[in-house]
């Protein structure tokens, strides 16, 4: 241990003795369960979302709106005027929540593990498909750094969506408290929890400060940062809960549109 190195160049880690190859490990527990589970549910939800946004209305003609309730996949609503009929109006805004979730730190972890097996589980060998590992240091994954861009946009969408949810209590037919509005309210609450617990938001609000006590503004930001940090600790839970709730609400609204269900409501 002589001298002082000034750069990391030239000190690549020497090779260890870890077993290589897909699934090579001394672990005895059921390490495969978690990635399979995550992979399955993520796939189910993503496939359903694709179906709902791209297929259901254009192909089967089932409306995305019923009883003044708008499917969350289409929210906030942008009218599809000028769109070719085969293109779903959901796409006008849907890329934002998709981008937001794809670049979300939690979902990155989930799909890197479940689909890229990089790593499949801790201390478990990887398949030899990633010959050259550069991950978020190079394209395409370096784009994950744009998460905050999606955050900015998502916050705007979320605000508009809140307005829509509130107005769903007051359709043209007069005020009502329907199961649909309650579900939409629950959904947007979870969504708000998800966005508020975002790592980037936590950073922007206070995490980037070095000194919390230095000024009144910083002390205020520190207070907010502490609250967001509390939410952030459960970011994974928010992420899944809000994803499931969107799908459930969407199914509910489509069932209304199909006439399978009737929205129970208290009309005022």
């Amino acid at each position, binding site marked *: *241990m*002589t*001298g*002082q190195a000034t750069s990391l160049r030239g000190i690549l880690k020497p090779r260890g003795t870890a077993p290589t190859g897909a699934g090579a490990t001394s672990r005895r527990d059921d390490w495969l369960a978690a990635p399979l589970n995550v992979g399955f549910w993520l796939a189910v939800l993503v496939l359903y979302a694709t179906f709902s946004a791209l297929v259901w209305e254009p192909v089967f003609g089932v409306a995305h709106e019923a009883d003044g309730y708008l499917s969350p996949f289409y929210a906030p609503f942008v009218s599809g005027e000028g769109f070719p009929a085969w293109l779903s109006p959901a796409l006008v805004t849907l890329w934002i929540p998709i981008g937001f979730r794809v670049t979300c730190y939690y979902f990155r972890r989930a799909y890197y593990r479940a689909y890229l097996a990089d790593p499949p589980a801790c201390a478990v060998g990887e398949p030899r498909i990633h010959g050259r590992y550069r991950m978020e240091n190079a394209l395409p994954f370096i784009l994950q750094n744009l998460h905050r861009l999606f955050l900015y946009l998502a916050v705007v969408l979320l605000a508009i969506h809140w307005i829509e949810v509130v107005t769903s209590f007051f359709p043209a037919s007069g005020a009502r408290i329907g199961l649909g509005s309650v579900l939409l309210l629950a959904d947007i609450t979870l969504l708000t929890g998800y966005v508020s617990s975002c790592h980037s938001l936590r950073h922007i609000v206070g995490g980037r400060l070095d000194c919390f*006590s230095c000024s009144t503004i910083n002390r205020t930001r520190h207070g907010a940062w502490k609250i967001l940090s509390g939410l952030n600790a459960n970011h994974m839970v928010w992420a899944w809960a809000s994803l499931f709730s969107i799908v459930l609400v969407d199914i509910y609204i489509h069932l209304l549109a199909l006439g399978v269900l009737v929205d129970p409501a208290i009309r005022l």
Partner: protein
Amino acid sequence: MSEPIETHAVDVLVIGAGGAGLRAAIAAHDAGARVGLVCKSLLGKAHTVMAEGGMAAALGHVAPDDSWQVHFRDTMVGGKLLNNPRMAELHAKEAPERVRELESWGAVFDRTTDGRILQRPFGGHSHPRLAHVGDRTGLEMIRTLQDRAVSLGIDVFMECTVTRLISGAHGICGAYGYWRTTGRPVVFSAKAVVLATGGIGRAYSVTSNSWEYSGDGHALAYDAGAELIDMEFVQFHPTGMVWPPGVRGLLVTEAVRGEGGILRNRDGRRFMWDYLPEDRRGEYAATDEEAERWVRAASRSQPTDARRPPELSTRDNVSRAIYQEVRDGRGSPHGGVFLDISYLPADHVRQKLPSMYDQFKELADVDITKGPMEVGPTTHYVMGGIRVDAETGATTVAGLFAAGECAGGMHGGNRLGGNSLSDLLVFGARTGAGAAAHAAGFPGTPYLDPVQLRVAERELGEPLERLDGEDAYAIQRDLQETMQTLVGIYRTEADLTEAIARLADLRARWLAVRAPNGRAYNPGWNLVFDMRNLITVSEAISRSARQRQESRGAHSRVDYPDLDDRAWGGVNSVVHRASDGTMEVGTSPLVSMREELRALLGGAH
């Protein structure tokens, strides 16, 4: 020697990378010396990392009337006036500066509300004085010093054990050792050598110390002709874990009692009431009710007229009390006593004692918020050590310096909690500078005597080559058993004489010890050299203890139960190697105290 031995030339060689060694290396580097730092384990793993409570320094952030004078008096009184007064003075004066310096190197101490370093109260200290980081102060200290040393570019030789010092015409001029990873020998030529190897806890079977504490520095210095002082003073911490067996001895911090922990025997009796020294009884609560009032107030940092609970008596006294309860058959099922804090709200306990909560939960399946812990005394610290000069850390051998736990004199007959970490910084810095100055004045380059190298080399090889013999673990078991039973908390002439005889026997067995299977990272082989040092140190402890015919501080003689100021109040025990190679024990008068310092002691003297 077929191939040339790997050799490194430095100006100052520091042996030991705990707090003392690191601070000495930084000081020597700052003084312009080329420094080499050697340690037995990885950098940053030294014993200092385990310290919990804090480091004592009269910063006065919490108690503005604290001053170096008060700290000096507390240290001397705690040490039963055997301390080197000049060391206690320098320590009290310089500790605040050293602590601040640590912060300027990046240490992150807990804060007061006005943004300065927070200090906590501890046994024997008149004011809240311990700068701390939760209950992991030692970790913060060693990490800060380690990062500092590394950024200065100091050469560190990790996992390298020194087995011999090499002397020349101008005193100590080098060291011989081996790499633990390969077992290959390595030689350092140095113009000055600093020993900072820590303590001796491994001589006992129940200890809060790690395997590194084999008294290497003590033994290396002794072999080189230096004097060891006060070796009879081994501190037994009253509360170590006793169950399960694997963690026996692990420290239960004093803070548990500070927070209101109550000691009870098997019959549920709060036995500390029976062990308070008569002349001090007035300082303690008179009833359970008063003690509880004190705890309540303390937990809310409120002033109270209640006096403190009997459990907060001095470490030596509490250790003796627990020992006696157990010996008289009133102990807990696993040979300890009960320490109970579960009567306080669970949240409060978890918040104040997070690592104790985890420690018992994870290692003993005991929830300390629900039931009592079982505790018993554990070997913790050695006050005795290599005799050093207060100003420079120079030992009685030219070119050899010592600092930290392996140096003696600073703590006298009993160390106050928190005084060790600050001792490491203050005397680490002084010793590093002293060694650098000595190195600068060294005439020419060190000459490494090939005869000494060959002796050291042969010694390393012998256990590997022997075809039969016992392994060193057996010797370790017997040594620990001997020291634990015969040279423990209570000592008698007969036991000590017996111990000395058994140690001679162990030394004879050691000469025939065998360690097969190669040199590369072979702990069985490494242990051989640790054992040699431990046997030497154990003998020094036993002989010094037999000589001091009184009870004082951490040294308790059943056959001489009282303090004897006339015969023993004025002397330190001294051990050194006689010209015929045998161990010689004697006394020397205490280092004289300046009048103005004596005045500070007031009624204490």
